[in-house]
């Protein structure tokens, strides 16, 4: 590409290419607000500027060379920003691909006389734009994957909260399916919270667990056993009728664990075991409104 006419043509026709390109983008892209159009305009001109610089210094090593660093950074930044803003992959990639038409027409105007040179140059330009387009798509994909990973992590943490109900009673509302990885997180969170709050009782509420099979039951029993080793008593609550049936049909032995149908019942048991008593304060002076 070292003796390519592309940089020369580009330099000469920069204004024309840029204008056509911006127009092209606005014609093919979705409807933009005035501010978005302004932003797209600015981005396009900035890109053209850095592309021009890179073309001028180009030594022929493709876009992985150091002189292309500016262009690469710009594109990666742009597409990752677009990925976060909810652009589609097509919209992001067409930012680069729509450059083809103005570029080719500029080449044709300049080199139209010599069809062999024109074909060569067009081919070079295609290669270049394709490379840039691939880079954009890759960056777009990568940002999306990062978002997904982060969400997975957040979901894992969100779904295993440990709540302090009383001075020495913890609750662990489980939501979603329990697999081995989650059990580890749940167990760790629970044990750390037991140490932190010096709790004697932990209530594991499984209202939000859709399915309990032997594996899930085993995970639950493990958690209970680990909490017991730390000196905390575990209660399991929120067992729905279907789940009670499944547990018995599967032959899972939960007899060593105190189980209750609702979190309220389990809380009541924990309060009583820790020596607390809940009484209703009757405001009525006549007094005898007993419950």
């Amino acid at each position, binding site marked *: 590409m070292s003796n390519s006419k592309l940089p020369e043509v580009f330099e000469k026709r920069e204004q024309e290419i840029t204008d056509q390109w911006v127009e092209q983008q606005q014609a093919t892209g979705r409807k933009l607000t005035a501010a978005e159009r302004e932003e797209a305009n600015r981005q396009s001109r900035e890109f053209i500027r850095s592309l021009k610089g890179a073309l001028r210094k180009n030594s022929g090593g493709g876009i992985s060379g150091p002189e292309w660093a500016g262009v690469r950074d710009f594109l990666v930044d742009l597409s990752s920003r677009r990925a976060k803003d909810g652009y589609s992959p097509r919209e992001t990639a067409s930012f680069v691909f729509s450059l083809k038409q103005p570029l080719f027409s500029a080449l044709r105007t300049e080199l139209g006389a010599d069809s062999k040179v024109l074909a060569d140059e067009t081919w070079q330009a295609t290669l270049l734009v394709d490379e840039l387009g691939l880079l954009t798509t890759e960056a777009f994909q990568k940002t999306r994957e990062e978002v997904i990973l982060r969400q997975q992590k957040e979901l894992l943490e969100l779904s295993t909260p440990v709540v302090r109900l009383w001075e020495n009673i913890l609750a662990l509302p489980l939501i979603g399916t329990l697999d081995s990885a989650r059990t580890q997180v749940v167990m760790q969170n629970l044990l750390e919270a037991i140490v932190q709050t010096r709790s004697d009782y932990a209530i594991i509420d499984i209202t939000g667990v859709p399915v309990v099979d032997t594996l899930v039951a085993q995970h639950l029993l493990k958690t209970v056993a680990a909490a*017991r080793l*730390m000196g905390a008593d575990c209660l399991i609550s929120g067992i729905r009728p279907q789940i009670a049936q499944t547990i018995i049909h599967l032959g899972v032995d939960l007899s060593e664990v105190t189980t209750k149908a609702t979190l309220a019942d389990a809380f009541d048991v924990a309060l009583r075991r820790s020596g607390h008593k809940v009484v209703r304060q009757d405001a009525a002076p006549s007094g005898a409104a007993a419950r």
Partner: protein
Amino acid sequence: MGEFLLVTIQVDMHDRLALTLQDDLTGQIVKHRAHGVLIDISALEIVDSFIGRMLASIASMAHLLDAETVVVGMQPAVAITLVELGLPMRGIRTALDVEKGMTALRTAILEGQDGDSSSIR
């Protein structure tokens, strides 16, 4: 400590040390006529199945000598390891720290005097 013995495990337990501990502890229980043993393992960071079994057998031995055992201060990581090893140590009383362990011992001894010490097998 009165009628209680407190054992603090400060170093990594290796097998020989564990056996020495069994000897010492049973001797001390008889000598001091202790009714309760607190084993503090808060400094213990690594456990294997041998240590788990050792703790269980110390508890049984102490029970034979009419003393209740409470293991206190287990690290979360240790608890998870023991459970994953399949050693939930059902026969042993546990408590979060020494203070809670003392309370647990007193309750256990009271229960024992009432002739109801079914929790240690």
